[in-house]
Every structure is written in structure tokens, then in C-alpha cells.
């Protein structure tokens, strides 16, 4: 009798434990499914690391391009960026849309004051992209606030609000903006499903991969560079990689005399 009773209590305890664990498992399952989504063919929807509104001005994303490593005919970053962001290629200059491109010294630094540069420096080609200026002239020119300065220093485009007036293109001293004269979908060979396209009649430009930053990834150009010539980081953080490079190298910005305070720096 007593042994049966003992067995009963053992059973009860085991059962209780089992029920408790099963309950925990179910709870965990509910928690896991409530916030996260099932597998899906479009872009992954992972919750970002932060919970609420970011503090404006705390972060200022910037980039240092080591042009000593960026040599030859390599176009890996351009190709990757344009593929990831569905940038069209129509094969002619008139309809050209570009987020990042390579250009000669005289085009990238037309107002550089340093005379008698070595011929090697003058013959290199230099990467150009949106400078994400701290004092961006394009954001002031935009009549609809379609382009604006983000809390983290990125000059962003809200394509929904762009009316295609191209004031920003006139205001940008770096030619970083392109207008969609044609439906961009005609010019995309291999569409990427991770990012939308634009439509005819809007201006577009580099977004410093703000779409990838929310997923905790580095910009596509930085990631794709085989020579690791591009370094991305927070200019406001004195311990960041970009600040370390700025500390140990002499750098140049594009057209610094305009007071736009570009966030892209070049090591020559």
C-alpha cells in the first residue's frame, strides 16, 4: 500500500515536472512566433537591435577610402552595390543612374589645392559616392523634404515623397544624384529581392546601405572590396576604425571649401 502510494507520488511529481516543462515549451514557442515571422521568400524580417527611437546626433556614419589599396580595374564594389540596390543600367550616359562609381583625380578632387601631385596619384581612379554631408545642401533644396538628414548622419531619400523636381541634383556639388528618366525596371538584369526598385520620375542616390545597417550588416561596397580599401564606422565614436584611420593618416575630403562637411574621407 505504502509502496503504491510512494509510486503515486513519484508519478505525480514526474507528471507535474512534465506538465511544467511542456508549459514552458509552449510559452517559449508562443514568444518565438509572436514577434518573429515564418520563413518567407522576400527580405528577412529580423527585429533590429534597438527598441525605440534612436537619439539624433549620437551616431554619424562615415567612410574612409584608402585609395592606395584601390587600384587597377576592379569594379567589385560598384557591381555589388548596384546589384543589391537594383540600380538600373541602360548602357548610355544620358539615362545613367549611379550610386557609386570610379572617376579620375581631376573629376573627384577638382578644387584640390595640392599642386604637383605625383603622376601615379593623378592616374589612379577614385571611388565617388554620396558624401552624406553633415551640412547637406541637397536637403535644403528639396521642396518636399523627400531627402533629409537622418538621426545617424545619413542623407536619406524618401522616394514616396520625391516629385522629381531635381533641385537636389542642382544643389549637390558632387554629382551624387541620378534621375530616373526611364522606368528603372527595364534596366535591371538580375533583380535583387532584398530591396525595392525606384520608379520613373524620382531622383536616387547612395543610401549608405541604411537597409543593411538595420540588419547589422556592413555596406555592400565595404563588404565586397577584396583589398579592404573601404572602412565604414561611426565618426562620433573616438574608438571606431574610421577614427583610428583618420588619426594615423592624412586624409582629404571632396570640395571641403564648400563647407558641406562630407562624411567620406580619402587617404591619398
Amino acid at each position, binding site marked *: 500500500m505504502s509502496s503504491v502510494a510512494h509510486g503515486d507520488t513519484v508519478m505525480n511529481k514526474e507528471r507535474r515536472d512534465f506538465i511544467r516543462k511542456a508549459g514552458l515549451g509552449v510559452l517559449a514557442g508562443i514568444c518565438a512566433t509572436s514577434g518573429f*515571422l*515564418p520563413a518567407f521568400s522576400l527580405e528577412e524580417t529580423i527585429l*533590429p537591435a534597438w527598441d525605440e527611437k534612436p537619439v539624433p546626433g549620437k551616431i554619424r556614419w562615415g567612410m574612409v577610402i584608402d585609395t592606395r589599396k584601390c587600384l587597377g580595374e576592379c569594379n567589385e564594389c560598384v557591381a555589388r552595390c548596384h546589384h543589391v540596390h537594383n540600380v538600373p543600367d541602360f548602357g548610355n550616359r544620358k539615362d545613367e543612374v549611379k550610386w557609386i562609381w570610379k572617376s579620375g583625380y581631376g573629376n573627384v578632387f577638382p578644387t584640390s589645392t595640392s599642386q604637383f601631385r605625383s603622376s601615379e596619384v593623378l592616374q589612379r581612379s577614385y571611388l565617388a559616392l554620396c558624401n552624406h554631408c553633415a551640412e547637406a545642401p541637397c536637403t535644403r533644396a528639396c521642396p518636399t523634404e523627400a531627402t*533629409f538628414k*537622418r*538621426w545617424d548622419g545619413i542623407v536619406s531619400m524618401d522616394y514616396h515623397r520625391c516629385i522629381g523636381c531635381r533641385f537636389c541634383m542642382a544643389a549637390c556639388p558632387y554629382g551624387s544624384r541620378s534621375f530616373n528618366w526611364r522606368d528603372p525596371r527595364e534596366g535591371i538584369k538580375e533583380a535583387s529581392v532584398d530591396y525595392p526598385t525606384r520608379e520613373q520620375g524620382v531622383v536616387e542616390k547612395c543610401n549608405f546601405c541604411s537597409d543593411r545597417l538595420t540588419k547589422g550588416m556592413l555596406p555592400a561596397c565595404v563588404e565586397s572590396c577584396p583589398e579592404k580599401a573601404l572602412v565604414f564606422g561611426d565618426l562620433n565614436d573616438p574608438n571606431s576604425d574610421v577614427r583610428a584611420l583618420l588619426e594615423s593618416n592624412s586624409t582629404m575630403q571632396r570640395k571641403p571649401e564648400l563647407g558641406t562637411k562630407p562624411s567620406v574621407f580619402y587617404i591619398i
Partner: protein
Amino acid sequence: MRIKRNILFIAIPALLVFAVIGFLLQSGNAVETPGAPPPPVAVDSTKCIAQTEYMRSNHMKVLNEWRHSSVREGNRVYTAHNGSRFQKSLNTCLGCHSNKLFCFNCHMYANVKPKCWNCHLSPMETP
């Protein structure tokens, strides 16, 4: 003869009752015009960001609000009424409402032509 009359006494009120019930049911359903697409059924209510009735009439406002707060203020997480959290993304909606015709059924019926798919990949274009 007597039996038949009894049947009539029962049958006539019964028919009347049926007719009244039928009429009431029909008047209740009068909102749903023939040809309207069937109302979409939520897969799992614990994953809903809001009540179905609310979403049916206000989804465009929700999308607008999500776009504004995520793109301009960096506030990318939406907390639903039951505490579950979602990324403010069109793909959050489409991930759950995975029926490829979910948007198109109603929009075609209502003759609404939103411009979402001029830029965003429509569910019809995804594998």
C-alpha cells in the same frame, strides 16, 4: 381531412417563421454584395498587428504611419495591442498574408490602384 388541416395549422406558421428568419438573415448580409471577394481570413490571431475590422478600413493609414516613423525617426519596431513586436516593414505584412492575391482581390474589386508595386516587389513577382 382533419389530419390535413392540422398539418396546415403547423405548416403555415412554420413557413412564416422561416420566411421572417430568411429575410432577417438576408438584410443582415446585404452589405456583402455579390461578386465581392471573400473577406481575408487571418492565419493566427496572435500574430495580428491589430483587429481585422480596423485593418480592413485603416491599413493604408497604418502603412503610412509605419513608413514615416521607421524611415524618418528610425523607430522600426511596432508593438501590437497584445505585446507582440513586429518590424515595421511591408514584408512583415506580406510574410503573414502570404496569399499572393491578398492585396489584389480587394483592390481590384474596389477599383483602387495604389502605387506600391511601382517600386516594391509585388507578391506576384516573388518566387
